[in-house]
């Protein structure tokens, strides 16, 4: 049984849920403290995030830069809109590939679940085509990760 669910909802939403063994305060901090974000929000195997700006207050900037250490990289920028420690974050983000993708509006909720946390992340894209493109980009990243793992097994 997987702890992660990912579903499309309506025309423009993607909803991800995940349970964590830590309380909401810790999970919230891991989503807002740049030192912690850099440790886990990495995408494909082998990639790192040398630049992580996360100014967690309304209007505060977000900037994540990823690199594979071989000259390839991309970055994401965004802004925080609302923060309710330790239960809710609302922000917008866009990927630069290098042209910016349309804004992804993200509401992330952290609810106490026993001794742990249930996280619900609801993404809203401007239209169905953007959602399709975003999911398709995600697939490529996912496939790359699996290919790298496959290489490790051979």
């Amino acid at each position, binding site marked *: 049984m997987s702890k*992660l669910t990912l579903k*499309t909802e309506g*025309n423009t939403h993607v909803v*991800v849920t*995940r349970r964590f063994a830590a309380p909401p305060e810790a999970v919230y901090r891991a989503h807002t403290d740049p030192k912690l974000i850099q440790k886990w929000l990495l995408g494909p195997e082998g990639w790192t995030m040398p630049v992580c700006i996360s100014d967690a207050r309304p209007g505060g900037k977000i900037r994540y830069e990823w690199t594979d250490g071989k000259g390839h990289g991309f970055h994401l920028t965004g802004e925080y809109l609302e923060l309710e420690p330790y239960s809710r974050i609302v922000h917008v983000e866009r990927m630069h590939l290098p042209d910016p993708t349309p804004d992804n509006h993200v509401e992330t909720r952290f609810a106490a679940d026993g001794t742990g946390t249930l996280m619900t992340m609801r993404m809203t894209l401007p*239209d169905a085509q953007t959602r*399709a493109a975003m999911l398709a980009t995600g697939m490529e990243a*996912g496939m790359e*990760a699996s290919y790298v793992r496959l290489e490790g097994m051979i």
Partner: protein
Amino acid sequence: MLGTLNLNVAFSALADPTRRAILARLAKGEATVMELAKPFAMTQPAISQHLKVLEDAGLVARRVDGTKRPRRLAKAGIEAMDLWLAMLRKALKKNYDRLDEVLAGVEQPKIRR
């Protein structure tokens, strides 16, 4: 293997409540255009138009049965979308597995020494 473009088309095809309702109906079994049009306040040509979008996206198939053209879910197309969502889940899973480790470290910094 379906490419990115086909998946884009498939997801765009799903971005309509009538087409999602048609897929939900076909999940229960084959149906003709007339049967599919019944629950909707729509003409048969309008339903046929939606079916064409779903067929072009590889999500619905048809067969010939006398003068009828019953539609059914196209298993390959539906499975490709499923597979692809599963891959995306996998990429996310990797990040959240890492986050589990980070959280374990944050919670008990002294026990590890």
